[in-house]
């Protein structure tokens, strides 16, 4: 059984007992425990089920590389699936549930898959379920999906109770990893004067060294770590962050740090995770190394663990996974585990060393303890079951004929080590194969390149392939100094601390145990625990021609589980290389992609959620609108009232009311969102003549002109009224969406094409609240305001004619009044300072009461303009329409040699007489044409599609005319007046509509010009 030991446990505080539950069962642990160590202390070895075969799974590692012990943590709005028990700090009240089983962890119905392993090999689904066709979607796929998938999804109706944030940080040197290598590298860099940030993913510093033993400058690693931490904390130029993982390295020295602030104390307040977005001149990856499993049959049975991880449980948390342990290894390090177990009073029943010659000093120490060590031997098989019970031993250099069976309840295995090269590789750092130690390590000649073309990542310590303590410290010292120098600080050479550890003899690569294991054993030798990929699967893939490492990965799913192959990739590669008769480096690795370890989506999104998911742009009259029934419509980041609905009123009713009232009495529109750009300078007229299709340079001061803007590709992109302010100043109105984009567009041409033209542009959109005062009573209300204020701007027909503007006071407000109309009614657009916008609006509402004033929204705006046949950018245009299509030839200056888009409009398709052109459409029965309906032509095209000859661009119920009105683009449209077209709806009906003039209301334009 696994249990808490009486002694040991450097990270736990035995005086602080903590209660938690696992699968509803109450358990106890200590402060400092990980969930995994606490479960082991409660003899809970089985922690989950595998992905495909639903085999029982126990914890195999002690850190973020853990593939098996994945938990559903928490409940309700703080629930989260797939949390590693190994990286979860125990806290009081923690609730954990194991995953991927039904009805229970101990009895799982889908464990039947385990019996079918012979059928469910790599790629079986590519070869099966082909017939009958509908069965894939309706039968096979649902079964496959349900059996896969790990943890349950969070409740869709609950919103995450936690908050998240980002933080930008800049450093000369970022050290990733707070083990002895990281700390020493940080110290070396900091002593050179560089600004250093150190990230450590765990809540404790020092990495493996305190567990592995040895000494540094004559002290224990623990003592050295404490001393060095104190030194670093005392330096102004050093920042240390624990619980903060270096998650990814991106171009130009961008590093993501993933800080877990309250995972160990949920609900304590403040953000749960903070995503650090760091810009570093140099990055030192001191990320250590990960131990590799050995591939023998039954290496996935709960109780089989990585040797160093088992040692972690003993030393760090005072827990042993078993009472009778077999150690299997191909290197010296695993002997440390045998020693640690022995010291803790655990019976190490055998050390099986695959090397014929065995190990060095550590092996001798183990033998001295009376532990039996066998050389050239292997584990043939661990007996299948929910837990290790029997281990069969055989010769390594054989086929696995078992020669001896040992009773044991745990196995510690070590297949050697792999440097953690992920962060080195994320941004293109290349690897080299170290034959002696049988691992890939960073190739210093081919680092990832930064913006200056030089390398910006340096690997240090075990992450760089240095496994012995003295080598680690020397390498780290050098790396820190190099990083500081590369970021601009003259190197200060500091002596490396002296590391002293037992000298280790060479490891010997063992990719399969025993070396010639037969097929039955290979089918039980796991490479990827979570995804159930075995040695035989990789061999099958190679045999079938999936020779590239990417093919093998994807065909077998090797390394695609949540650990992203941290344990399985190198072992799998070696099997693949062997199958292909190739060397491992020739086969290469799959690509390392961020993040190093999964990070929460919440952290990635940061603060941008709920109310501030995106900025809401508000006009000065926003709050009034909101309080007065505004039915909001997002328009870009603005929100504009679609209509102002009153209680008991439908949207449609509200719109009809607003339309009628504006035509008959008085309507107010909050038009503040319209873009307003001041264009000024001696060349401003010439410039605007290029920007607009119209002639703007000849506009008289005090007058307005409606203008069109096209892209250089000829398409209509914006429109608006331009007012000439003075000799060299124009005010250009744009659409709501156009303010920023047209401002940018103007600046682009001024800065990059006509930089010698003297023109300045300023975006003054938000300086003003702009109100359209519309309807027969428009002048009356404004004159009343002036009368109340004892005078003001003369707004009479004579003093301010149609299409002119004046500046002055209206109702005591400094204002600019434009006599322009987008509705066909008598209309003024009045601009006042934004800070006074609400007050001005209030004054209008109050004074307007006797004139039956009502605010109106965007839908009424649309209908009013459509009744008049005015086009709307975004409705009649969609980026494929040119002014000529819309009958706007009058706005295309014939006098100008050039304007943006003019050349494009001369291309063959642009002058094609078959282009669809703007017309009005009137349904024969008065109904409303469906939005976006197409007019049916004759026959079908070469691809069998029905020919279309036109489409509806805008369609409304006109309250004024009490019938449907529409505009559309129709082939040869203006020449086909009176013709009836058919528009098939998606509702099964066919709508008939007559082609008519697009001006439906007040064709003579009398109403706006009074």
């Amino acid at each position, binding site marked *: 059984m696994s249990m808490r030991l009486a002694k040991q446990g450097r990270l736990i505080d035995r005086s602080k007992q903590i209660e938690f539950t696992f699968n509803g069962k109450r358990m106890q642990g200590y402060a400092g425990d990980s969930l995994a160590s606490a479960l082991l202390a409660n003899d809970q070895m089985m922690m989950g089920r595998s992905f495909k075969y639903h085999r029982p799974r126990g914890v195999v590692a002690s850190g973020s590389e853990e593939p098996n012990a994945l938990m559903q943590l928490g409940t309700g709005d703080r629930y989260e699936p797939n949390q590693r028990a190994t990286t979860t700090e125990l806290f009081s009240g923690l609730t954990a549930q194991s995953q991927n089983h039904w009805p229970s962890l101990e009895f799982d119905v889908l464990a039947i898959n385990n019996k079918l392993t012979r059928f469910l090999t790599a790629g079986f689904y590519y070869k099966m379920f082909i017939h009958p066709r509908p069965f894939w979607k309706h039968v096979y796929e649902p079964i496959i999906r349900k059996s896969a998938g790990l943890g349950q999804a969070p409740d869709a109706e609950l919103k995450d109770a936690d*908050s998240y*944030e*980002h*933080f*930008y*940080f*800049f450093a000369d040197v970022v050290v990733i990893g707070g083990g002895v290598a990281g700390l020493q590298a940080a110290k070396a860099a900091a002593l050179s004067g560089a*600004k250093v940030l150190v990230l450590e993913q765990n809540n404790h510093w020092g990495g493996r060294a305190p567990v592995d033993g040895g000494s540094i400058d004559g002290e224990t690693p623990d003592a050295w770590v404490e001393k060095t931490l104190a030194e670093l904390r005392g330096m102004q130029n050093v*920042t240390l962050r624990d619980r903060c993982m270096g998650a990814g390295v991106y171009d130009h020295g961008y590093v993501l740090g993933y800080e877990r602030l309250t995972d160990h104390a949920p609900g*304590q*307040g*403040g*953000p749960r995770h*903070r995503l650090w*977005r760091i*810009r570093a001149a140099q990055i030192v990856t001191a990320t250590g190394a990960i131990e590799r499993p050995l591939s023998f049959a039954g290496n996935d049975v709960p109780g089989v663990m990585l040797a160093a991880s088992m040692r972690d449980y003993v030393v760090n948390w005072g827990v042993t996974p078993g009472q009778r342990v077999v150690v299997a290894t191909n290197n010296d390090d695993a002997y440390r585990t045998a020693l640690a177990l022995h010291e803790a009073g655990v019976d190490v029943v055998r050390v099986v060393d695959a090397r014929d010659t065995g190990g060095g000093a550590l092996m001798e120490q183990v033998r001295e303890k009376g532990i039996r060590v066998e050389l050239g031997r292997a584990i043939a098989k661990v007996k299948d079951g929910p837990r290790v019970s029997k281990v069969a031993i055989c010769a390594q250099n054989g086929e696995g004929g078992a020669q001896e069976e040992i009773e044991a309840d745990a196995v510690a295995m070590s297949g050697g080590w792999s440097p953690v090269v992920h962060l080195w590789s994320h941004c293109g750092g290349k690897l080299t194969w170290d034959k002696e130690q049988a691992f890939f390590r960073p190739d210093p000649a081919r680092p990832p390149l930064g913006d200056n073309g030089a390398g910006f990542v340096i690997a240090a310590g075990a992450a760089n392939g240095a496994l012995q303590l003295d080598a680690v410290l020397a390498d780290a010292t050098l790396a820190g100094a190099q990083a500081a120098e590369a970021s601009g600080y003259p190197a200060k050479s500091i002596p490396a601390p002296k590391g002293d550890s037992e000298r280790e003899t060479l490891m010997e690569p063992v990719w399969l145990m025993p070396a010639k294991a037969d097929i039955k054993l290979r089918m039980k030798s796991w490479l990827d625990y979570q995804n159930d990929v075995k040695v035989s699967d990789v061999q099958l893939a190679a045999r079938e021609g999936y020779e590239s490492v990417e093919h093998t990965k994807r065909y077998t799913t090797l390394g695609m589980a949540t650990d992203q192959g941290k344990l399985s990739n190198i072992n799998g590669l070696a099997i693949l290389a062997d199958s292909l008769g190739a060397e491992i480096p020739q086969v290469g690795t799959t690509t390392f992609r961020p993040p190093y370890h999964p990070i929460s989506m919440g952290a990635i999104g940061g*603060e*941008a959620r709920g*109310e*501030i998911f*995106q*900025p*809401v*742009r*508000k*006009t*000065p009259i926003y709050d009034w609108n909101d309080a007065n029934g505004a039915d909001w419509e997002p328009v870009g*980041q*603005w929100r504009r009232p679609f209509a102002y609905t009153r209680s008991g009123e439908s949207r449609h009713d509200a719109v009809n009311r607003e339309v009628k009232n504006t035509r008959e009495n008085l309507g107010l529109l909050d038009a503040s969102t319209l873009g307003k750009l*001041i264009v*000024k*300078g*001696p060349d401003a007229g010439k410039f605007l003549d290029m920007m607009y299709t119209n002639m703007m340079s000849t506009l008289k001061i005090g007058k307005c002109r409606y203008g069109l803007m096209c892209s250089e590709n000829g398409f209509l992109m914006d429109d608006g009224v331009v007012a000439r302010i003075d000799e060299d100043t124009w005010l250009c109105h744009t659409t709501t969406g156009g303010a920023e984009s047209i401002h940018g567009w103007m600046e682009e041409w001024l800065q990059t094409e006509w930089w010698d033209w*003297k023109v*300045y542009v*300023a975006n*003054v*959109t*938000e*300086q*003003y609240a702009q109100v359209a005062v519309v309807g027969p009573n428009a002048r009356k209300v404004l004159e009343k305001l002036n009368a109340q204020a004892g005078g003001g701007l003369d707004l009479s027909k004579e003093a301010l004619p149609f299409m002119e503007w004046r500046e002055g006071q209206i109702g*005591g*407000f*400094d204002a600019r009044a434009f006599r322009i109309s987008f509705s066909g009614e008598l209309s003024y657009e009045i601009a006042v*300072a*934004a*800070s*006074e916008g*609400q*007050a*001005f609006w209030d*004054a209008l509402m109050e004074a307007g009461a006797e004139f039956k004033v009502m605010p109106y929204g965007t839908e009424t705006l649309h209908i009013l303009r459509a009744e008049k046949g005015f086009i709307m950018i975004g409705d009649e245009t969609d980026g494929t329409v040119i002014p000529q299509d819309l009958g706007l030839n009058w706005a295309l200056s014939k006098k100008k040699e050039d304007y943006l888009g003019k050349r494009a409009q001369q291309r063959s398709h642009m002058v094609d007489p078959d282009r669809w052109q703007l017309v009005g459409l009137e349904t024969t029965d008065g109904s409303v044409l469906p939005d976006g309906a197409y007019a049916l032509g004759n026959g079908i095209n070469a691809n069998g599609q029905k020919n279309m000859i036109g489409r509806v661009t805008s369609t409304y119920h006109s309250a004024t005319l009490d019938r449907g009105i529409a505009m559309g683009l129709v082939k040869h449209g203006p020449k086909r007046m009176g013709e009836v077209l058919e528009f098939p709806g998606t509702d099964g009906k066919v709508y008939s509509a007559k082609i008519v003039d697009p001006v439906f209301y007040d064709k003579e334009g009398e109403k706006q010009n009074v």
Partner: protein
Amino acid sequence: MSSPVTATNGAQFTGIATVEDAGLQGMITLRGDLSSKTLKAAVKAATGAEVPEQRKISVVEGGAAAWMSPDELLLLVPYGDAVAKTAELAQALKGEHALAANVSDARSYFRISGAGAREVLAKISPVDLSSQAFAPGDFRRSRTAQVAAAFWLEDGGEEDSFRLVCFRSVGGYMFQLLAGAAHPQSAVGVY
């Protein structure tokens, strides 16, 4: 005549820093040749401040001039003087190619002060806000979360105090953003 109001109407929040609506502020966008003597004189006359160096703000009692781009300044004047000062600038710069526009009402204006002020800004802006990198008189235009903004660090005082300018329409967003970043339990502890 009414009294003008800001977009966030005096909003205030205190956590690791104090975030507050800094009230109405006269602001004038001035575009022109920043090396021109006439322009320098006009700026001095309007604000009392010198034309600042690149990415700096020069602040004097009652006025300031901030460097927006090689041909643009943002001038700070008392709110009530903005219209008149804009006209004076235009008059003074007659004959020069220049553009002065009153943008006082187009902006929201905030103060972020206290021990956590640097951290609050560093949560939303990709700018190095360490004291070595950002000092009083520095002026920076950048991105704050999803909107553009400009900010600077005020001179003197016991604790850090930033001023921040953004568009008026996103004043509400900016306040929520800053207040969230100033959550009392969110100190990073690096500045």
